[in-house]
């Protein structure tokens, strides 16, 4: 019979009478244990060996446990220092005893939490007493540490320590338990017969080489087996940032729904950010505290004159009959002031006004997934910079039902269903709705966006004479919903933990 060398070696090292462990076979054959294990399984399949398995439980001390073997348990050291300081007779200031004991850092807490438990005395109001009758020499935990000190992986049954003490040591993190499977091998009768008849060794090779292939030798060799289950070395491939992945996914969905992408300035005149949106100049959101106004440069050079005129008139008088505008001041200089856009709706006003890509004829759908800036308190759900998904649909006649249908379709792409519409107020849309959706995993009802039909006072000055419905949503919010991330700061910005990014699940 012809067998690979390692199988022959294993058969020759094993016995038909006594079970031999894989480790013992490895020692006898001078092969790595995983090679022996592989060979044993092959031989078992050939019915040349019988394999039995049992599970051994072993214990060994942790580094902290080893340290206490040398230095003594913290509570014992505390007790000894306390006795020394006279705490056996009357309470002593704890600070003094701790100082004398030489305990430092976390060891102090460890000593204090075990001191009274083990009857070394009591601690009360910063004072410590010691029980003079306590016997540190009889401390079961200390003795167990000494017992286990020298050996690694002592089989549990060989350790002269009771189960309760073992459990306590494990709880304190002084001891590790581990389980290992021990396989033992016995030769079968068939193997004995084959051995008697004599075994030949087949040649095995590790690597497929050019020589092997060109010479044709590969036909006569056995390939050494690998442990194909073992973990390989970690490879850190590059990956698109998870928030970018989310943004790509949103863009894909919107393009699929017929939306065209917009692009435009981050630093823009308040005119485009707010005035064109029919936001009154004294609206609270336009105060210093909510926006990032620019110091340098401070004002835009030019605005389209006739548009400025129309927008001002809409603010002051409204548009059309029965429209009254705001009873608020309006100043062109204020409109020309530059700020980091507080929403990407500034792109929508620029596009709708016809100044970006010319007049847009209905029907049309536009979107952007771009950054907006808002002066908010930085916390787990708010960032100063965030990505806003902005979208609008322009058509001759649009109803709130069209708006609802569009959003249901969009959010369904992300597994968010049962959208609810809460009537809401925005200065630039009417009717307006806050959108609520059901969290795909927790089932919670969560605000997922803000929407509405743009007001006449906004559209008319921009030169739009049909309906436009629009909505906005923070991309981070959608990402948190779909990835389950809880802290927005993990996702975005220089706080980024590479480990988090490397391990983040891909979204698609």
């Amino acid at each position: 019979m012809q067998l690979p060398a390692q199988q022959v070696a294993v058969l020759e090292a094993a016995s038909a009478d006594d079970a031999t462990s894989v480790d013992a076979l490895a020692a006898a054959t001078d092969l790595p244990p995983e090679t022996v294990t592989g060979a044993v399984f092959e031989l078992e399949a050939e019915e040349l060996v019988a394999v039995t398995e049992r599970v051994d439980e072993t214990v060994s001390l942790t580094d902290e446990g080893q340290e206490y073997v040398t230095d003594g348990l913290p509570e014992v050291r505390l007790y000894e220092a306390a006795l020394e300081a006279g705490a056996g007779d009357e309470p002593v200031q704890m600070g003094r005893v701790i100082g004398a004991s030489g305990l430092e850092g976390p060891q102090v807490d460890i000593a204090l939490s075990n001191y009274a438990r083990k009857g070394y005395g009591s601690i009360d109001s910063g004072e410590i007493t010691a029980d003079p009758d306590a016997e540190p020499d009889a401390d079961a935990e200390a003795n167990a540490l000494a017992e286990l000190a020298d050996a690694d992986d002592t089989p549990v049954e060989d350790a002269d320590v009771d189960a309760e003490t073992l459990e306590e040591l494990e709880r304190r993190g002084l001891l590790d338990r581990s389980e290992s499977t021990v396989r033992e091998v016995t030769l079968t009768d068939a193997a004995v017969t084959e051995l008697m008849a004599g075994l030949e060794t087949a040649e095995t090779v590790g690597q497929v080489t050019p020589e092997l292939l060109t010479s044709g030798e590969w036909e006569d060799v056995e390939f050494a087996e690998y442990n194909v289950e073992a973990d390989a070395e970690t490879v850190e491939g590059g990956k698109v940032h998870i928030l970018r992945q989310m943004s790509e996914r949103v863009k894909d969905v919107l393009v699929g729904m017929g939306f065209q992408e917009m692009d435009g300035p981050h630093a823009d005149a308040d005119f485009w950010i707010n005035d064109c949106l029919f936001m009154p100049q004294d609206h609270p959101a336009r105060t210093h505290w909510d926006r990032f106004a620019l110091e340098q440069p401070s004002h835009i050079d030019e605005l389209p004159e006739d548009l400025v005129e129309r927008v001002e008139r809409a603010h002051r008088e409204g548009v059309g009959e029965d429209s009254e505008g705001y009873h608020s001041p309006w100043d062109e200089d204020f409109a020309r002031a530059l700020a980091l856009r507080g929403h990407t709706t500034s792109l929508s006003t620029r596009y709708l006004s016809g100044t970006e890509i010319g007049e847009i004829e209905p029907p049309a759908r536009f979107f952007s997934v771009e950054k907006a800036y808002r002066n908010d308190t930085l916390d787990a759900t708010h960032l100063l910079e965030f990505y806003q998904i902005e979208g609008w649909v322009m058509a001759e006649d649009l109803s709130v039902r069209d708006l609802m249908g569009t959003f249901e379709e969009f959010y369904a792409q992300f597994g968010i269903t049962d959208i609810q519409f809460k009537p809401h107020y925005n200065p630039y849309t009417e009717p307006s709705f806050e959108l609520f959706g059901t969290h795909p995993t927790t089932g919670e009802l969560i605000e997922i966006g803000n929407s509405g039909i743009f007001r006449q006072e906004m559209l008319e000055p921009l030169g739009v004479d049909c309906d436009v419905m629009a909505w906005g949503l923070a991309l981070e919010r959608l990402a948190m919903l779909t990835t389950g991330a809880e802290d927005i700061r993990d996702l975005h910005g220089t706080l980024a933990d590479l480990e988090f990014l490397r391990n983040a699940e891909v979204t698609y």
Partner: protein
Amino acid sequence: MPTVDIDPDELRELTGHEETSDDDLKADLFGLGLEFEGRTEDGEFELEFAPDRLDRLSVEGVARSMRYQYGDARGVHVPSPNSAEWTIEVDESVPDERPYVTGAVIRDVNLDEDALDSLIQLQEKLHATMGRKRAKGAIGIHDLTMLKGRSATDDGAPSIEYVGVDPDGDHFVPLDSDEEMTPAEVLENHQTGQTYADLVSGYDRYPAIYDDLGLFSFPPVINGRRTEVSTDSRDLFVEMTGTDQWTIDKMLNIVCYALSARGATIEDVTIEYQDHEIVRPDLSTKTKTVSHARIETILGIDLDPDEVLDLAERSGLEAEKTESEDGDLVYEVTIPPYRVDVLHPLDIIDDLGRAYGFNELEPTYPDVGTVGGRHERSRLERAVRTQLVGLGFEDLLNFHMINEAENYDRLDVAPGTDAYGAGEPVTIKEPYSEDYTMLRTWVMPSLMTVLERNTHRSYPQHLSEIGFRAALDDSENTGVGESRHVGAVLASHDAGYEDAKARLQALARNFDVDLETPPTDHPAFISGRTAAVVLDGEDVGVIGEVHPTVLIEYDLEVPVAAFEFDLAALQ
């Protein structure tokens, strides 16, 4: 969003539905757009409201809306004020910045603790919203019995006078104080005075209101103690000053409706300006014309005209069917005087939709065909990002805002020099945080910071970002030059110039641009190991080994090779 506190028991009493459970009450409030946020210490409902229906800033206003919702009230109700006895005379000395005043007298009001609390809250909430923190409109409410009217008018009718005084021209005892102070001293020493000092400190003369006994109110800052309202007050004088007549008149209407709901009688006040006279409160209604077709288009449903009339009444409006000049069906809709949010007929359609129940509408996908597509810039960015990831880079996404120290100093570059990335900063006015004072002029600082924060993570660390950056640029309309840079860093124990160059070459090859790297100097990089990135003949970036001074600055113990260049150069 702002909140208003409402006592549920009072609400039940004022709506006349004592039996409503807390849960039903919450659901009914949600229907009005008032979201239950929690309870106050006193057990009141804390409700979040959208700042359009300012007539619902008090329990009386919320109760009114609920009575319409329940169908207990329909149409428009206007209280009838008694004719004016009191006059507010407006003196020519009144500061130009705050010329307007309005007022009303309220008689026989029953102010128990709850009613007084509600009135004070309404005053505060109106200040915070319509009043723009008192800048646009400020409310003063006085105990009428404590006022001694001047008899300046011929018929001997009582009057008070709105005037402008020198900051130290007179004195009075303000609320929450025992001392006589001049207006200027109030701004200096009184807590409320300090809070609102900015509103008037620029005026030459300060606004003040006098009766026969002297100065009793210093709007918009504080009232005098003499006329303080208490639960014993039966008759009130309400005055409001501001920068816009319409705004204070509407605020006054909301207060009058709230007090009228408690059984008080409203009495007109005559305002005598220098050149004209008006009588307030102005409780006249407005009408707007709404087209039936437009209602149907916006709601997306067919409606029977009678149904529209019904929806209007249930919204506290009154509609009348009529015909437009073109013969179309339209409605003349009457709007009550407490409404401040109806700017356009569309706002009435929103009311009708709410009364109908927006959630009753069936969503439809708009039957409109359009072609989608991405912006060229965004396609290029995606393509470059795909290549970078293929080359093994971890794609990053960092903040655009930064501060000067991070953007320049730590990388040894100075603003406005010709080193790549060192453009003049676009700065933020009165920055909120010293960490964010400008827009980054390049992405290297962000990448270096991520390396700094991750020294405990395994190497190699190959990071890249295609990121927004900006610097001053006079040739732009905004004065801001905005663009994207491609930045990359390679950090590992053996990272070197060649590793960076190899990857840059691969990028250039993939986008079919010629790459040259003539030697250059840059303060952030090691001299002799730094080159300009020249793509198709244009100098668009820098590549090199980061200087050890910079590595030490970022606590890095491994070499870093890096490049950064303008994304547009790959176009």
